[in-house]
């Protein structure tokens, strides 16, 4: 799980153009939205694309994405349980 978390952090930084951010600066359990990384609604859509493209997981709505993307740790757990590739 630790490896997947690190992998996700790198992919998030790249996909969302988080300039100057390193994986170490992202807390596994910090919220990705609001006070955490401060991501916005477009970022939710971009993360939905990220997990479909990389792990074959298709989320059907941004609302579902909000649940899955609570934190990197929650996201990694969901990916580990549902990945198709």
């Amino acid at each position: 799980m630790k490896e997947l978390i690190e992998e996700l952090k790198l992919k998030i930084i790249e996909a969302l153009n988080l300039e100057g951010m390193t994986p170490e600066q992202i807390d596994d359990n910090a919220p990705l939205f609001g006070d955490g990384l401060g991501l916005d609604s477009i970022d939710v859509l971009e993360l939905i694309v990220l997990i479909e493209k990389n792990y074959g997981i298709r989320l059907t709505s941004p609302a579902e994405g909000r649940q899955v993307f609570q934190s990197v740790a929650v996201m990694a757990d969901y990916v580990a349980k549902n990945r198709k590739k």
Partner: protein
Amino acid sequence: MKILHAVCILPDAVRLDGVQLPVSGQGTELLAALYREHMKDYPKFFKMDVLSKLGVIATELLVEGEADRFTPREDRAVLLFSKSGPLSDDRNYAKTITGDDYFPSPALFVYTLANIVTGEIAIRNKYEGDTTAYGLTEFDAGQFVATVRDAFEDRITTSAVCGWADCVDADHFEAVLFLVAQGAATGRDFSAETVNQIKQA
């Protein structure tokens, strides 16, 4: 109407009020270097397309010395003109929906609208006045000046960030932006002749 400040940004050069600024890098690297020197605290900059980065950083150079930055105001318009509009974004977005690797990028898609750059400038600076993006086949100083002057007829607008912001791709772009104001005591006259002199300097 007077020009308070004028800025020109090319992929390898920046001129503010006629003075060449020291720069590092070329193309988008130059824009990022300007960000690090003049903005620093707006990471959303890195999520923008090249046209928006160009417009936002050019505006930053025009207004960074103003008092009461970031106080919401309705009396300032943002009026930009370009030839290419968002065509480079259209091409980048098309790559994400072509062939078997079909993963449309929402972050690219939002920038395929021509007026996003004016919105980004307004959001950054809390300008709540008129924001408009115009398409021209070529830069025409006379048409540009006349259109901007018309915008001041609404009895709300007293100043504007306006000018030419054109982005062909990440390595080919040009911004010639002006901060103009009605009733200003100092500054150069906002005329087609002056605009052409500044653009061609």
